[in-house]
């Protein structure tokens, strides 16, 4: 053999052998992923140490030593030294969910919330039977939700100043998300178009909105819009905020989608043209499905950013969950309780943001049709 290694030729069919021991299974996985090099081993050990020195403490604070039944912070502290005082959440969670919405009318936002998911089904589930008709029905959701939350037409009207908490976050977040995507698509197409006027309008809009902090836009919505609008025209503050947040997010959305458009090979545009598809057909059937798929991580990133940015409305005096911390602290009984309130708010936001993130991962996997 040895003298032949230079011009080696297999003389017989080699059988397929099992892989060497320790390269597969749990041991193989740990060896490859946790202890593959000295640096990796050190990092693994440090991580294990950090986890063991923090997690039990947090767990004890949040669950083992926590207090659920108490009437004030002092009572809590009397019961436990180092445990969370969830009693405050138990007493006031409805405020964090609905703000100062009339208690007897809670069923209306709850129904609107449930209907939101019903309306989302046709949009998120593409294998649904009779999807076209269902989508049309979903289009009526904004009006239904508006009617349920604000009232009128037979329902007792509720003023915008009563809205707050998660309800307000959801109103601004969901409307911002559902309107910023289509507006962003139109802006991205405008910015990549050959028509000079359309293109410059899109560029000016995007660059202006991106160049200004969201808080500034919210102040504009709050204060300045009154000066610009004709006398007597005075639309709702929540509506004004929704418009500003939507415009803000759509500028970012446009750039994310433009990235997706730019990532497509020129050949895709040419093939669509060569087949005789019109501009709108080729955008709808060929370009956007691919560009949006590429942009999913960026789009969801913008969605999550928008959802969390809704907390900025506390600056102009709206009672979003963070805005409700102050009135809670103003109560003599709960003065001094910070961590529990913020932890609860963080938990609420995390649920929604994490759900969006998981859905985007599912969508990416589903749309993966092999490399091009």
């Amino acid at each position, binding site marked *: 053999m040895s003298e032949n290694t230079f011009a080696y030729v297999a003389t017989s069919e080699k059988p397929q052998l099992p892989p060497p021991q320790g390269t597969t299974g749990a041991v193989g996985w740990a060896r490859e992923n946790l202890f593959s090099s000295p640096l990796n081993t050190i990092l693994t050990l440090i991580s294990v140490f950090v986890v063991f020195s923090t997690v039990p403490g947090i767990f004890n604070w949040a669950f083992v030593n926590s207090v659920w039944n108490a009437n004030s912070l002092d009572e809590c502290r009397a019961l436990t030294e180092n445990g969370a005082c969830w009693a405050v959440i138990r007493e006031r969670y409805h405020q964090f969910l609905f703000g100062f919405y009339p208690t007897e009318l809670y069923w209306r936002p709850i129904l609107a919330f449930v209907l939101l998911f019903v309306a989302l089904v046709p949009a998120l589930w593409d294998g649904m039977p009779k999807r076209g008709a269902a989508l049309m029905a979903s289009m009526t959701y904004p009006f239904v939700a508006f009617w349920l939350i604000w009232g009128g037409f037979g329902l007792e009207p509720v003023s915008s100043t009563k809205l707050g908490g998660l309800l307000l976050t959801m109103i601004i977040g969901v409307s911002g998300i559902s309107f910023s995507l289509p507006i962003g698509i139109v802006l991205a197409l405008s910015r990549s178009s050959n028509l000079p006027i359309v293109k410059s309008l899109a560029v000016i809009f995007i660059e202006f909105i991106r160049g200004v902090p969201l808080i500034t836009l919210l102040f504009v919505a709050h204060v300045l819009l009154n000066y610009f609008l004709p006398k007597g025209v005075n639309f709702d503050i929540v509506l004004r905020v929704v418009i500003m947040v939507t415009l803000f997010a759509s500028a970012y959305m446009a750039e994310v989608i433009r990235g997706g458009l730019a990532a497509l*090979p020129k*050949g*895709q545009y*040419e*093939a*669509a*043209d*060569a*087949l*005789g*598809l*019109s501009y709108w*057909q080729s955008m709808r*059937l*060929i370009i956007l*499905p*691919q560009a949006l*798929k590429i942009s999913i991580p960026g789009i969801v990133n913008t969605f999550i950013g928008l959802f969390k940015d809704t907390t900025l409305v506390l600056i102009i005096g709206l009672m979003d969950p963070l805005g409700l911390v102050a009135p809670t602290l103003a109560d003599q009984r709960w003065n001094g309780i910070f961590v529990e309130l913020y932890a609860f708010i963080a938990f609420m936001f995390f649920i929604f943001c994490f759900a969006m993130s998981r859905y985007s991962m599912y969508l990416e996997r589903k*749309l993966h*049709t*092999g*490399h*091009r």
Partner: protein
Amino acid sequence: MSDVNLAEDIQADRSKMHVSDTDVAIEITGMNKWYGDFHVLRDINLKVMRGERIVICGPSGSGKSTMIRCINRLEEHQKGRIVVDGIELTSDLKKIDEIRREVGMCFQHFNLFPHLTILENCTLAPIWVRKMPKKQAEEIAMHYLERVKIPEQANKYPGQLSGGQQQRVAIARSLCMNPKVMLFDEPTSALDPEMIKEVLDVMIGLAEEGMTMLCVTHEMGFARKVANRVIFMDQGQIVEQNEPEPFFTNPQHERTQLFLSQILNH
């Protein structure tokens, strides 16, 4: 050149290929094009009769691809006239779409739509451009997929196919629009040698059915067997054109001789 030899053993039946004497498919007169200051196409004149198979060759950068891409307006010409199937190509979008419906095109990199299945790739244009019912479009698509010998791949995605298979799908996709003229822009240049033949076979079949074809290619075996005219381009001009036999055996122009000696004597 191995590609040339590989294409030598292809069979083509010239007796089936019929060129019309009166029916003009494409007429290009005095066409000029610039990229900025760069004059890429200089005074192109070309008349293509129905049923002609024209092979266009020349060194890279000579403007061959640009010329055929002008025919379906993937590139815009700045001077001169292009008339395709009696329709003059102007900036009128309606005219452009009308011409694109009648002119099929295959690209070097296939340009299949990766998010659609093979069948959907083929039915898309008939359904949306020709307004054909889905069922009928699928029947036609299956017919042409059988023609290019891959009906069994209909429900796969382009990413799951080999290069040669993808190019055959691309040809089928164009044929589904029932075009009067087919343009091929280096259809075999991105393929492994063993896949070139399967694509050329399909193209020969098309020629035997009387399709008018303009083909930018360096497959000289294909040119010899199928083309009724070979055009040599250099620096944006048509330098020489002739029937394949005299073109290969007795090239007139110095640049043609140099080009042929470079690609044939390897």
